């Protein structure tokens, strides 16, 4: 009957809505697991320069072959998860903490401070960030720590903007007003009411920020500005680029790994946005 068809359709839509979050969460868990268990999962030490040079797929037990230095590509990919996750998490953390504090304070305290901060945010949004990151990394030290810090320092404005908007509306919310009349201090309110209640959009944005951080790191590595002391996918592409026709596996799998990881973060971000979007949680209070 008609209603049956409607039913399946509705179910499909719901699953479709949730599936992103599900995939995202499972994907992240998977990546985390791989990151934690890298030493167990990787068949070989990726920092070991073996005798097998430029072996193809499966040759001599190298699942994804080896590179010109004799490193096992599969093991490198596995260890690369660590670098990518580290870059993603730490830079996003820096960006989120900065953004939340700056945006939260500006939005909640308002007034001239807010005007100044929000104009700064607007100005900062106009800054060509990749250019800036590139410049700093190229000119100063290209250690992975620097990369993470610089990404964090240049991407906070979007978080600040989000949380500021949240703070602006939250401070008009009744529960904040009522907290004031209950005698709570401004800092208490900022940390107890404004930030916890306004953090979700930042969270969703942060996962997107994480994917961008991974891509940025890869881009820098591709320009030869990666940190040689760690194994990163971007660097594998950079290194594998010269072998792209003869030993295509070096750059190709690293690229695939980036695509998959970034996709997982995007899925998570979208899923979060989806779930947190009030339009999807219909139904009024009560129940």
């Amino acid at each position: 009957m008609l209603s049956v068809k409607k039913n399946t359709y509705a179910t499909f839509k719901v699953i479709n809505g949730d599936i992103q979050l599900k995939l995202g969460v499972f994907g992240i868990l998977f990546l985390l697991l791989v990151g934690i268990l890298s030493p167990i999962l990787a068949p070989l030490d990726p920092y070991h320069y073996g005798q097998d040079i430029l072996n193809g797929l499966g040759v001599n037990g190298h699942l994804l072959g080896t590179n010109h230095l004799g490193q096992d590509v599969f093991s490198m990919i596995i260890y690369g998860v660590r670098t990518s996750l580290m870059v993603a998490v730490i830079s996003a953390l820096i960006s989120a903490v900065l953004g939340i504090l700056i945006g939260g304070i500006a939005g909640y305290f308002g007034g001239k401070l807010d005007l100044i901060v929000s104009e700064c945010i607007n100005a900062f949004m106009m800054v060509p960030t990749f250019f800036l990151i590139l410049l700093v990394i190229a000119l100063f030290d290209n250690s992975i720590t620097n990369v993470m810090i610089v990404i964090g320092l240049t991407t906070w404005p979007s978080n600040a903007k989000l949380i500021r908007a949240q703070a602006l509306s939250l401070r008009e919310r009744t529960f904040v007003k009522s907290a004031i009349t209950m005698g709570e201090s401004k800092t208490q309110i900022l940390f107890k009411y404004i930030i916890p209640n306004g953090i979700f959009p930042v969270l969703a944005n942060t996962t997107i920020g994480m994917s961008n951080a991974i891509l940025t790191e890869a881009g820098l590595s591709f320009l030869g500005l990666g940190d040689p002391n760690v194994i990163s996918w971007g660097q594998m592409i950079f290194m594998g680029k010269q072998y792209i026709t003869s030993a295509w596996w070096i750059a190709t799998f690293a690229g695939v790994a980036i695509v998959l990881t970034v996709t997982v973060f995007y899925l998570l971000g979208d899923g979060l946005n989806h779930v947190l979007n009030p339009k999807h949680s219909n139904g009024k209070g009560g129940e």
Partner: protein
Amino acid sequence: MKTKSPFIKIDKISMWYPQKSKNLFMSIREERKWIKAVDQVSIELERGEILGVIGESGCGKSTLGKVLARLENPTNGDVYIDSVSTKELMKKDTKKFRRMVQIVFQNPFDTFTPRDTIEQILLRPLKIHGIGKTNAERREICIKALESGGLRPADEIMKRYPHELSGGQLQRISILRSMLFEPKFIIADEPVSMLDVSVRSEIINMLLTLSKEKNATVIFISHDIALTRYVSDKIAVMYLGKVVEYGDSDTIINNPKHPYTQALISNCSSIDPDEQREIIKIQGEPPTPVNPGPGCYFASRCFKASKECFQKYPAATEVSEGHIVACDRWY
């Protein structure tokens, strides 16, 4: 006039917001424009009195409430409670002021942070103000309060999150929480307008009972003129930030003198289908409170307006004992 100073004296209180200029730099050069949300309002109230405030949307009722509760700092004026300047009090002892003055908000669904349980929500203010020594003691206080408000079983309700309770329950909790401080002055800003009609009466009755018990003075802000009449002893009618008429509630409803009050009341429909409605039409939409004046703010819409009305803001006239009208053509 009176020998004894009133319990609560609202003294020429004003709240002017600067017209929002979105640009930091241009705002410096531009001439400031002011939204006079509340403009020189003076009211005196006795202990235990209930004042209803009515008026069109945007006339400054809520702003008045917020200023009285010091959620906003008034541009001008002060409020004295028992002859104590609340401005001074805020500076010296904010917490004491907070315990003296409480506000009940319109939207019970939004009065509590969604992340905490009712228990956490109720205990926090007690802790802040050092009421009760141990958490157990504080819990006891809360449970007693909830049960007195008909919220049973109290300890079960305390475990819930706000979204697991109905609007009526939440509004009760909100009122009960305010009462924990035994405030002397309560501002209720449309406390029932978001609630289902059928549960309104219970909330209103509870508010009235509690404030009578504590002998607190109440300002009751509402759109609903019939309800305001039911609740309050006195009524103040506001228009664009000014009180245009003030008096005993029955006097105001039955014998309004200000043209605006007359229009307001005539437009207010009743549930009595037989009632003859003869509405007074006033032209136009309410103007914005940006730099109003210089004459009577209502003049442009007034059916009685004369030339003079546009020139000078009319003085408040006491037309009968305790009935004050800010209109030169009230007769």
